[in-house]
């Protein structure tokens, strides 16, 4: 079942701090090494203010901001063939919790040879063709960042693992090995009003998969050009990144465990020029390995997922993007039979449509954009208009809104109905 936005894991400073220290040490080593060999080192980054204010209701804890922070990001690049080192670290002050944080966004070392590459460390991986719809992008996301009006790059979280890329002539391939599980980040219950099927059970414990060889996640992608189209095949063996709720008793629960069930994904995608635009097709089968017969109501059933996307430039600097997404649940009758009474029932066929309009003006320094999700099956929606202006080559600001509504109180966007917000992002880049 969908126990969305249930994760408590907001940040992982401890893990981050040790990793940061580790990476900083290696960076210092590389720096001193590379300094003596006159390699390339560059430092860039930004200073940013990001604020998001409630427009419909205060937060559940009475505060009025979904997000309020000042942040500095430093990106350090050092390379000396065939090695490359990259470090992206954020430090920020969160005004809502009155706390400062240090976060290692990415930190990895690359080794490049003529026919293969390796990347080790914390890295962001993006697969698939969807615009905010993910089938074969099985890597961790931060939905709280997205719903709070943070810059889009914060929707993606890094994985701690190894990527090996190979380039034989027949096709290219990427193998990703992730020993440390990283769940998605869902909105914080203190900041977001959300549906909870068992609100009275407050004791909850999150159980990440144990770090073992068997639990190491594997993701594999093969891709090549097929008659002018970009074609990919995908495979993933790991876990759902959205937790399932496991109550200690169905009749009188006192505690809920939040667990991440086993998942395998088999997928394919193809993208190319068609109909005077770019056409994308992506499909995937989610094999819920712990509930293959669909009888466990607390574990998601297996699902088939399909995405069709189309993007077209209508006139100068104006682009329209349309998507249709469908999700079909296997063993629906078993799901229906075993669903405890009082729990909201998911539809057998869940659909989602999206539209994105983007217009650039004033020599592409002013961007007007509008993004919207609408679910034809659930009748709920998300609206996200935004204006972004580059005041100069180094300073930009964006103002936008997130408006949620429609559907039932347990639906994806319907459940966020009371969380409408208006946000501001201001950034100085160097």
């Amino acid at each position, binding site marked *: 079942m969908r126990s969305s936005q249930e994760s408590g894991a907001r940040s992982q400073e401890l893990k981050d701090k040790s990793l940061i220290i580790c990476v900083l040490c290696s960076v210092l080593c590389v720096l001193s090494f590379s300094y003596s060999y006159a390699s390339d080192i560059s430092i860039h980054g930004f200073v940013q203010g990001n604020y998001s204010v409630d427009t419909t209701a205060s937060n559940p804890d009475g505060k009025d901001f979904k997000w309020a922070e000042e942040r500095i990001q430093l990106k350090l690049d050092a390379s000396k063939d065939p090695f490359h080192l990259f470090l992206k670290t954020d430090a920020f002050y969160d005004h809502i919790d009155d706390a400062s944080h240090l976060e290692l966004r990415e930190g990895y070392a690359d080794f490049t040879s003529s026919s293969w590459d390796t990347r080790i460390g914390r890295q962001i991986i993006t697969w698939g063709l969807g615009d905010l719809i993910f089938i074969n992008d099985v890597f961790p996301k931060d939905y709280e960042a997205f719903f709070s009006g943070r810059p889009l790059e914060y929707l993606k979280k890094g994985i701690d693992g190894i990527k090996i890329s190979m380039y034989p002539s027949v096709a290219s391939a990427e193998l990703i090995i992730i020993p440390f599980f990283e769940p998605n980040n869902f909105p914080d219950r203190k900041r977001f009003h959300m549906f909870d099927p068992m609100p009275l059970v407050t004791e909850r414990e999150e159980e990440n998969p144990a770090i073992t060889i068997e639990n190491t996640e594997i993701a594999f992608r093969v891709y090549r050009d097929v008659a002018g189209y970009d074609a990919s095949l995908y495979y993933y063996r790991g876990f759902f990144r959205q937790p399932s709720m496991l109550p200690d008793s169905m009749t009188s629960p006192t505690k809920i465990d939040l667990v991440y069930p086993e998942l395998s994904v088999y997928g394919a995608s193809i993208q190319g020029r068609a109909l005077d635009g770019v056409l994308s097709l992506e499909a995937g089968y989610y094999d819920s390995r712990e509930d293959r017969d669909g009888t466990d109501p607390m574990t998601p059933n297996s699902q088939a997922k399909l995405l069709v996307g189309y993007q077209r430039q209508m006139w100068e600097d104006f682009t329209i993007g349309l998507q249709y997404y469908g999700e079909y649940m296997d063993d629906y009758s078993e799901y229906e039979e075993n669903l405890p009474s009082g729990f909201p029932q998911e539809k057998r066929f869940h659909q989602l449509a999206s539209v994105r309009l983007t217009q650039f003006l004033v*020599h592409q320094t002013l961007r007007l954009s509008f993004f919207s999700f609408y679910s034809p099956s659930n009748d709920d929606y998300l609206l996200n208009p935004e204006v972004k202006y580059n005041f100069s080559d*180094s300073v930009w600001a964006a103002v936008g809104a997130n408006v949620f509504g429609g559907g039932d109180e347990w639906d994806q966007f319907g459940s966020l109905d009371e969380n409408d917000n208006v946000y501001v992002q201001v950034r100085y880049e160097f």
Partner: protein
Amino acid sequence: MKRYMILLVMLLMPLTAHALTAEEVVKKSQEAFFFQGKDFKARVVMKLISKGGQERVRELTMLRKNYGASGGEQKYFMYFYQPADVKDMTFMVYKYPAKDDDRWLFVPAINMVRRIAAQDKSSSFVGSDFTYEDVSGRDIEDDTHEIVKEEKLGANDCFVIKSTPKKADVDYSYKLSWIDKGNFLPLKDEYYDKKGELSRVFNAEEIKDVKGFPTVTKRIMKNLLSGHRTETTFIKTDYNIGIEDNLFSERFLKQPPKKWTE
């Protein structure tokens, strides 16, 4: 003696009598401007200057490789240094004659390669006064061409060619080009809008010889209607540098080789 003179004149006749047609001039001009060498590299610095004098800078390395004859398929690879919000972005174009381009963009912040829709070739290139067609060429067959006159531009003898788009797919009604009779580079272009008024002017400001190829290394495009202009300088320009075919791939979009971006 007179007989020999006549013979000589007759021998020379085919050479002098066969004047170039407008299409041939435009073809030679495109060859000289967009297709020289097997491949090409330049660090491109574009200054976008508003009417009020505010300057913005776009800086990139442009790598181009030809596939087949002049006017044929080409691949472009671009790596951006400036402004800061597009630093490390890469952009790849497969350009085909008489067919829409394939374009890909790499966004480093989320490590994503994405195809982008590219129907409108008369769109501005990175917000400048140059369009994609100004940067990579326009199909000869898309326009009708005529030589309207031959005249000197400064010290250079030029053909003046009028090119009129066959379809209304661009924002001008015709273009006048002053093409150098010696090296066939365009020295000046004037774009006239639908009302027949001069709207944009291109000027080749500096021409240098690079490995035997005359190359426009400074150029200005001025929009007379808005007062906005773009000054483009090519530095570190080079030809026939052995760009590998596999550069134009997702692999190198994500990790542009240092040897090309330095």
